[in-house]
């Protein structure tokens, strides 16, 4: 059966659906794949910024786990309003909620594809939304299940954000997608007095910590926030690496966002991409020829 007839076959039983563009559809047929149907998975989780049993500092009846770093006040007893310490802490409860939401959505997407007898899901598009009125977080994944004639579908269909020519070039280059992966790290910052003053730009310059008195804040790097940002980037990569099992994370997207709160910045780093595996030795391409396009405008 040719690729064209394979693609048209399901129409007799009932037209297939897909999220592919026309160009992606043409490239999908070129690879020998046939669209089977538009598949979806979603999950909505309760989104509690402070975790069960924790106050806004992440402290209280609950127990902190994961990364944390404390910063002491160098000023001694100043006033009741003066912050006596600062804390960077990992919001593991947010990380768990985000990851479980992604995992559930992915599992539902894969189950739909498996039920269709698909070998994989391509062109995955995600949507995340925080519903503030209900305190819920929604994770939705959409994609197109595809089949391949002449091969038994794997027990777990592959998943990838790629489609069209990019997917085809990945295969030609000797890599096959395994699954989409995601990791998140969430760091809360309860600013110390020094950090708080530095963020306001308050204080004198040129004084070291040893010489510092109340109100005189050193210029230079804001250590607590720098450490929190570095920890967010480092943790998210540490958390993702075990999911790769020796494979490669291809086309990774690292998103770091920070929003202000009364305590200090709240930082989230999300790393995602397609886990790919090399299925044959890499064959180098010929050196590409530099060209100049002659165009009107």
């Amino acid at each position, binding site marked *: 059966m040719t690729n064209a007839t394979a693609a048209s076959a399901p129409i007799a039983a009932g037209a297939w659906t897909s999220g592919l563009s026309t160009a992606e559809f043409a490239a999908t047929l070129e690879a020998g794949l046939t669209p089977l149907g538009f598949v979806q998975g979603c999950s909505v989780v309760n989104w509690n910024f402070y975790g069960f049993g924790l106050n806004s500092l992440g402290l209280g009846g609950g127990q902190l786990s994961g990364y944390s770093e404390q910063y002491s006040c160098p000023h001694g007893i100043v006033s009741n309003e003066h912050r006596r310490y600062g804390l960077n802490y990992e919001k593991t409860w947010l990380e768990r909620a985000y990851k479980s939401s992604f995992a559930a959505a992915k599992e539902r997407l894969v189950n739909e594809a498996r039920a269709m007898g698909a070998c994989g899901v391509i062109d995955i598009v995600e949507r995340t939304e925080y519903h503030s009125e209900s305190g819920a977080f929604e994770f939705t994944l959409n994609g197109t299940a595809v089949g391949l004639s002449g091969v038994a579908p794997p027990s777990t269909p592959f998943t990838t954000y790629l489609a069209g020519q990019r997917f085809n070039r990945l295969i030609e280059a000797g890599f096959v997608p395994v699954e989409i992966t995601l990791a998140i790290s969430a760091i809360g910052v309860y600013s110390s007095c020094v950090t708080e003053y530095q963020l306001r730009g308050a204080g004198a310059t040129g004084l070291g910590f040893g010489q510092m008195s109340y109100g005189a804040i050193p210029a230079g*790097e804001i250590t607590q926030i720098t450490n929190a940002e570095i920890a967010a980037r480092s943790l998210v990569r540490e958390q*993702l690496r075990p999911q790769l099992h020796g494979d490669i994370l291809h086309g990774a*997207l690292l998103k770091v966002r920070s929003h202000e709160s009364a305590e200090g910045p709240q930082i989230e780093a999300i790393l995602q991409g397609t886990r790919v*595996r090399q299925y044959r030795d890499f064959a180098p391409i010929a050196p*590409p020829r530099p060209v100049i396009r*002659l165009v009107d405008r």
Partner: protein
Amino acid sequence: MNEGLPKDLRAAITALGATGAASTTARSITSDLSIDETLLLHQMGFGPADLVTGFSIVAIPYGTFLNQYGQSEPVDLPGATNATLAAFTNAIERMRDECQRAGGIGVVGVEVKVEVAGSSVSVALSGTAINPLASGQRRTKASPFVTDLSVRDYALLTRAGWGPLELVIGAGFVAAPPQRLGQVMSQARQNVELPNITLALQRAREQGMERMQQGAIAHHAAGVVDVTIIDGPLGHSHHVCAFICFGTAIELIAERHQLIEPQLILPLDDSFDFEATALRGD
């Protein structure tokens, strides 16, 4: 049609195995490169080593951005300038350390994000460390390079006989003096040049470009390519003109510059606007 592709895909799906379990225990690699960039990098004899980052936030001394009353000339703001340079330097060094730990010889395609807040400046970097596929291609330099050039630009630069040395930066912050009341009144309702802001921006530019050039000289570079400029009055302090620039310092690694001799092509696929109404003769 490419008949080999479906065959390749069947082999690939078969290789995934019935369970989809991993086939190797090698160290996992993370990379933000596209498949085209990866292919081009492989063609050059390199591969991605790891996704690496660098970050720093530095406090700007209090009062730096206050209005400069009583001044008639633009006022340099070294506190803000030095904070920006320090944030860049710290972030680049942290990225270089990560690259070294990943065994990379350099970082390509570095994405640079700079934010000047009311009293602090932050720099966030992310990119992919690369290493040679064959051990014989090890770079002789002790320290990995950092460049914001894309893999395509890196390939083109190398083919022309040049190599990246370092991401060099420049910054200048200058406060425009407030205009006297008489000036404001005389210029009211007239579209005339504002010399205080013009001079401040010009001085900030000169300082920034000079510092970037000094950085290139310190690295014994021949020049700087692909310079990105962020300039203009600060959103929160309109009288302060900021000029931040960064680019890749390069050196000649071949005996002489190599001509790449690009081929001229005339595309036959002209784009056009398709208007269905025209077909109907409306």
